[in-house]
């Protein structure tokens, strides 16, 4: 009885703090469900960064100029950094990176479904930068104001670094749009394939989203899925026009009354199929990650063993 009253009191205090826009820090009391939600969300986010290295990494070796190559390499490297910052933020919640990797590699944890689509041509690299990073940035800017301190701070750093990513992608597409007939076709084809999956990145519509309401109350999320999706569409149409590409949606048009673009119906069956593992690349992405992790085991162990040997030697020398 007293215990439940205490928890109710703690919860009320916690919520008051969140409502007052104060950040929750690692050692602060927090509801167990808040902690769990954060671990799930932050680690999903971290996994997305790390798995996201693969589709883009697919073109590093084939980048068509040295300038494009270094830009793409630096960008994919940033994704590794972002994964690292996010894993660190998750680790402040009492779970370690090995456990998080384990969840990813066994398929227990999810990552953004967008990375289960293949990067088939060079134009995909530009399109991923423009649309996928563009969509991600919408979400990430919102998350710089999330209620959990370490997550918010990681997002501030990530947003600062991300700022070149979308430009990098758009510049690739600009070059294609001003290029040969083949290059323009390549561009339109990539946009056709990436547009709808990019809209799906914001997650199910608000009515269907299971975690949304509670996450909004806890101020983990600050805007709803549909709200962010709308902002993304509104921002993207003009950029598409400048590129001279057609966004593959006949229902896309400006709605004067709403002050927003209307857009067509998303194929949620496809969305759920990919989430459940049936996307074109799900199996391969996990296989690749698992292989890297397993192939690296002897390296991680050896480095640790060496550090222990060295520490022991230093101790011995200290005694002698």
């Amino acid at each position: 009885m007293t215990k439940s009253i205490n928890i109710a009191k703690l919860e009320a205090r916690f919520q008051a703090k969140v409502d007052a826009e104060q950040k929750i820090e690692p050692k602060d009391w927090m509801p167990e469900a808040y902690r769990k939600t954060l671990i799930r969300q932050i680690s999903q986010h971290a996994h997305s960064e790390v798995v996201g290295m693969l589709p883009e990494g697919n073109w590093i070796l084939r980048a068509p100029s040295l300038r494009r190559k270094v830009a793409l390499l630096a960008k994919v490297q940033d994704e590794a950094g972002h994964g690292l910052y996010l894993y660190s933020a998750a680790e402040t919640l009492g779970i370690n990176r090995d456990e998080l990797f384990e969840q990813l590699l066994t398929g227990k944890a999810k990552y953004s479904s967008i990375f289960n689509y293949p990067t088939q041509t060079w134009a995909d690299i530009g399109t991923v930068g423009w649309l996928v990073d563009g969509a991600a940035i919408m979400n990430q800017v919102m998350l710089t104001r999330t209620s959990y301190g370490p997550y918010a701070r990681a997002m501030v750093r990530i947003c600062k670094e991300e700022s070149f990513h979308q430009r990098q992608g758009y510049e690739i597409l600009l070059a294609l749009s001003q290029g040969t007939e083949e290059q323009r076709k390549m561009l339109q084809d990539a946009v056709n394939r990436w547009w709808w999956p990019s809209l799906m990145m914001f997650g199910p519509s608000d009515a269907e989203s299971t975690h949304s309401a509670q996450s909004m109350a806890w101020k983990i999320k600050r805007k709803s899925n549909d709200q962010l999706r709308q902002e993304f569409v509104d921002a993207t149409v003009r950029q598409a026009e400048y590129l001279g590409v057609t966004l593959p949606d006949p229902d896309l048009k400006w709605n004067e009354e709403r002050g927003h673009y209307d857009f067509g119906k998303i194929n949620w069956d496809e969305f759920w199929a990919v989430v459940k593992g049936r996307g074109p690349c799900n199996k391969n992405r996990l296989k690749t990650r698992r292989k890297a992790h397993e192939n690296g085991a002897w390296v991680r162990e050896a480095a640790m063993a060496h550090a222990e040997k060295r520490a022991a030697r230093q101790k011995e020398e200290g005694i002698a």
Partner: protein
Amino acid sequence: MDQAAALLDYVLRLADSNLVLGQRLAECCGHAPELELDIALTNISLDLMGQARSLYQYAAELKGNGCTEDDLAYFRTEREFRNPLLVEYPNEDFAYTILRQFLFDAYNQLFYQALENSSDARLAEIARKSIKEIRYHLRFSAEWCIRLGDGTELSRQKMQTALDDLWDYTAELCTPNATDQTLLSTGIAVDLEQLKAPYFERVEEILTKATLRKPDYEPFQQGGKEGSHTEFLGHLLAELQVLQRTYPGAEW
């Protein structure tokens, strides 16, 4: 060989070495044993690519006729690449990646240190910029050699296997060819003969710390600097050059 042809050949050798090794390291991006290591290897790759670009730009100017860095990187064939064989060796596992890096860095640091005194102002300037990055590469790869050599029994075996294979390709690094001879008299080229002793001294010092055994054969593979390569290079270039070759004349 005349001085101009020799200088172009020399600059391309340096550029190709960096590009090929940078490309090999870029293969690890997204696949390294740990995230921190992924980032570190990519940093080295980016340094090498950056140096390669400065060198290709210089070579393009030497060639003239509107030649660009990308023309040189994307439209030369296997037989025209001038890098030593060591850098094209594949990432069979992480031991190969680290040892290849160390065996090259140890040479590269000595080389670029000397190149700072080149009578060719442009090369001297590139060397001054590059040497700080290379010094860090060597620190990194030497440290990892020691860690993995003197780590677990398994890691020592893997490192020894890689060393036994890669050792063969160390001969070429400090062996001058006609290009070096031509440029030596004008003080443009580094005297490679002078690097040989300090190179092997430095390498053996680290191998000892890493508890690795120096292979008991004399390294002898040569030819990369004259465009005679291993089978590995053709595949690396096929991948690197595919878009430019498929769509000639396109701007990217």
